[in-house]
């Protein structure tokens, strides 16, 4: 499947969803003027990708790394980050393995806590990495 890529801007994160390299990343700042417009194509891509993975049959196991390295995100973005995680977690629940690395700047307790809250809400384990 063709990879998804969104260039980072001063208000929106870099989004790289690259199944061939088993690497997904959302990084930077997230306060787009219209969060729905920004995040919906990402959620649509994930939905299509899930269909493709699930079509490959029960013997196929997809493995990938999902990296979050956010400087900050606004409260509207938080809702969409949760949607992305919930959507991707459907693959994990079906036996695939997408692990999450949640990066936070040294001293940024709020970003660490935000990861912990999201992890609790989607009920899957994150690896927390300080930088």
């Amino acid at each position, binding site marked *: 499947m063709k990879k998804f890529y969104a260039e980072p801007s*001063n208000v929106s994160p870099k989004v790289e969803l690259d199944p061939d390299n088993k690497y997904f990343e959302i990084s930077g700042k997230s306060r787009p003027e*219209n*969060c729905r417009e920004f995040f919906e194509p990402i959620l649509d891509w994930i939905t299509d990708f899930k269909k493709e993975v699930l079509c490959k049959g029960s013997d196929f196991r997809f493995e990938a790394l999902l990296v979050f390295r956010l400087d*900050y995100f*606004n409260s*509207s973005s*938080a809702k969409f980050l949760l949607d992305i995680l919930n959507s991707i977690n459907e693959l994990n629940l079906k036996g695939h393995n997408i692990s999450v690395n949640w990066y936070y*700047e040294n001293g940024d307790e709020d970003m660490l806590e935000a990861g912990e*809250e999201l992890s609790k809400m989607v009920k899957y384990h994150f690896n927390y990495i300080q930088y």
Partner: protein
Amino acid sequence: MSSKQEPLTKLIEFTGVLDYSTMDSLINQVEEEMRNIEKVVSVRKRVINIVIECVENIYKHSKILEAEKFNENFPVTFILLSNTNEYVVEIKNVIDAYSEKIISQKLNFINYVDKCTLKEEYCKIISRGEISEKGGAGLGLIDIAIKSGNPVQYKFYPIDEIYSYFEMFVNIDKK
């Protein structure tokens, strides 16, 4: 305005009509100022996050109310202040009676409950969260209160039977 007595110094002040590009440059200005003056990462990021939520809230309300017509007497106001103990974000903007009711209920709740309950409420809203027509998810004020860790001070000054001038102060400890 502040429970602590030490005088506050204005770091950044904006008064006028807040359109998207003005909001964007205001946030950039705050980011730059905070990078220069605040070395404690958690405090710096807390201030930036709170400012973003505050000005995005104002912007969403301004878009709906065509705030330009109030600009002369009741302009959008944003001020970032500081002393040795804390940062204070002060905002003022016009809102309608419906928003006043919602904001007032939300802030009463926020100031009444503890941080744990606020976090639970945040998770509840985010889990069921529909993004409103205004573009927000109803989370902004809760996020502000969680990050600030202090009661949010606010007041409504009636303009006429429909509109009020809303004033809010958010205190962020330097620690």
